[in-house]
């Protein structure tokens, strides 16, 4: 409620200052008027009295306050401070009544005509000292006292505090005008924060014709534009992915036919280097295309996992089957070590297959004839899927660099060595997306061990379905 806090503070400060100012000015004005009047009264009495001797009569009962009498039965005393009628007290040249001193009044210095006695700005008692033409007698000066009772001359403000009413009215008006506005602004803020930017919805009840409504409508229009743009982008991405999928399909079929022929050729001429090279390249093209497909999914705006129960033993067998030919070509032995029972985890089938395939491909590709590759799956609370080879391995410093760059090799290296570029990067990304860990280790006996580790789901899909339905 910061706006209202500020309003409260401002009104208190300004109202307080104005009120205080008014009260002080009023008091001062009344006192000044009273003093002038008392001075006139003193002087006129002086003129009336017959010279110095009459001065002594100034303090006579004639001008003394009337003795208190029985209060009139028919009229209650008026509210407010008691009205003191004026008194004239003759003073000697340097006399000063004790009672005046007791009240804190100081004897003013001699002046030409009359001077005021400082009684305090807010005091209702007023006193002046009038100089007489007889400075040496008992009537050298006259002390004239009175009060600034309400209704007396010079009052600016009326007696009762009714003058505060307009001030309060102003404050109240400000609050009445601004409090609803502050609330509406808060309401609008809450609406904006309630939902994401592109689904901002101004409720029908918010209509109005003030600045806040205008702001709300502007925000609504902005949100609508944002939503349109986002939909446009999403549609574009969808079209791109569909294009990739269709293209993949169009390429995969002829590639498959090619591979069937190459295989027959290999059988007929197993030692022909060209034939082996063709087989190699065909395999690589197939793997690369599938990697590109995976990369398109991963690097898209919102990489999604299509999670389902994945049986790892079957996955490993499929990947091994895919690479058997390749391994045979390279005279590398490829073996798998699997648990007896089906091993289920939660994950994206295709991406996991890609991740493992890339590791197996690299293990075979970088190996030498007569080398070995083993894919081993261990199941427990966690699963550990390792690809172990006795190839040259990766030097420690290079391994560090690869890990740092997220397994994306630089261009030259990617083109030259083929494996470290896209394949390992995809494996790493897939592991990350699943919350699994990818580790590259250098076993003491040499070679490379690449492992993917993550939580396992010990229940079968049937059991999972039972749990759901």
């Amino acid at each position, binding site marked *: 409620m910061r706006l209202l806090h500020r309003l409260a503070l401002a009104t208190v400060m300004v109202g307080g200052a104005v009120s205080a100012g008014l009260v002080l000015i009023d008091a001062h004005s009344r006192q000044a008027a009273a003093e002038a009047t008392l001075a006139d009264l003193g002087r006129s009495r002086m003129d009336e009295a017959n010279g110095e001797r009459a001065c002594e009569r100034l303090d006579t009962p004639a001008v003394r306050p009337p003795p208190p009498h029985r209060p009139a039965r028919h009229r209650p005393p008026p509210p407010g401070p008691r009205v003191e009628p004026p008194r004239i007290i003759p003073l000697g040249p340097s006399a000063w009544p004790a009672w005046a001193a007791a009240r804190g009044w100081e004897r003013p210095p001699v002046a030409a005509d009359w001077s005021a006695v400082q009684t305090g700005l807010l005091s209702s008692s007023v006193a002046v000292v009038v100089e007489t033409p007889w400075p040496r007698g008992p009537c050298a000066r006259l002390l004239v006292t009175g009060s600034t009772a309400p209704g007396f001359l010079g009052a600016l403000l009326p007696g009762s505090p009714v003058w505060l009413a307009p001030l309060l009215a102003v404050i109240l008006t400000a609050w009445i005008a601004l409090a609803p506005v502050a609330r509406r602004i808060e309401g609008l803020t809450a609406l904006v924060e309630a939902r994401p930017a592109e689904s901002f919805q101004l409720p029908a009840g918010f209509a109005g014709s003030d600045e806040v409504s205008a702001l709300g409508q502007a925000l609504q229009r902005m949100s609508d534009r944002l939503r349109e743009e986002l939909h446009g982008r999403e549609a574009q991405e969808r079209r791109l992915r569909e294009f990739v999928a269709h293209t993949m399909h169009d390429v995969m079929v002829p590639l498959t036919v090619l*591979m*069937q022929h190459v295989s027959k050729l290999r059988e007929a001429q197993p030692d022909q280097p060209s034939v082996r090279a063709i087989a190699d390249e065909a395999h690589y093209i197939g793997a690369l295309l599938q990697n590109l497909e995976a990369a398109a999914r991963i690097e898209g705006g919102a990489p999604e996992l299509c999670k389902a129960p994945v049986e790892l033993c079957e996955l490993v067998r499929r990947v091994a089957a*895919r690479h*058997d030919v390749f391994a045979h070509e390279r005279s590398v032995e490829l073996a*798998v070590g699997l648990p007896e029972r089906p091993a289920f985890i939660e994950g994206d089938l295709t991406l996991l297959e890609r991740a493992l395939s890339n590791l197996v491909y690299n293990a075979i590709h970088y190996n030498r004839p007569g080398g070995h590759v083993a894919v081993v799956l261990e199941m427990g609370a966690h699963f550990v899927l390792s690809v172990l080879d006795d190839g040259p391995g990766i030097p420690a410093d290079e391994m560090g660099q690869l890990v740092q760059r997220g397994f994306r090799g630089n261009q030259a290296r990617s083109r030259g060595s083929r494996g470290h570029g896209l394949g390992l990067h995809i494996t790493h990304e897939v592991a990350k997306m699943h919350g699994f860990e990818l580790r590259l280790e250098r076993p003491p006996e040499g070679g490379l061990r690449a492992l993917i580790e993550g939580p396992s789901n010990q229940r079968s899909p049937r059991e999972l379905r039972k749990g759901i339905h």
Partner: protein
Amino acid sequence: MARILLIEDDAALAAEIVSTLERAGHTVDWWSEGRVPDPSGLDLLVVDLMLPGMYGLDILVELRASSDLPVLVLSARNATSDRVRALELGADDYLTKPFWPEELVQRVKARLRRPYLARSTQLHVAGLKIDTEQGWVCRDGASIELTPTERSLLLILAARQGEPVTRSRLAEVLADASSLGDRNLDAHISRLRKKLGPGEVIATVWGVGYRLATKDARRP
């Protein structure tokens, strides 16, 4: 070996697949359009997804309403959702293009290994006869004496029908599961090999452990 129906609309690819499977010893029929086959008389259906006529998945659904015939899906569509869907609808396997013919043969063989009732409890390896159910081993009619540990090891290997078994799995049967278990395992296997006589009965698998030297489970 088996009667296989292939439904694939690309003629060049279909010709290759038929030729590959026939060379592996199977009898293959080929349809180029999608329609639901009569499962009787068939041992396996190999079907593409994108077909003129009826889509592969629809064929699968209709087939599954009345038959348990093993189905292997071939497809260029590699999207996880497609594969999961096909498996949910009852496909037994899903082979994505491109694939090597050897791969196809292996996957077909794996699907034809159902039902398990046909599995024999007796294995023949390098002149040995092993009964996995009763747990005895004999060569030329003469029974071979094995310690309980050696028998356990052999039966585990035999149960896996030639697939490699990891060292850690084998080490589980050893009496003392200490850190020396590994070397201990090698010693046991070595003694077992000696007892089993000539010929390679137990093969070493680099990086994994050991396997029974039957024909490789993966290689046709």
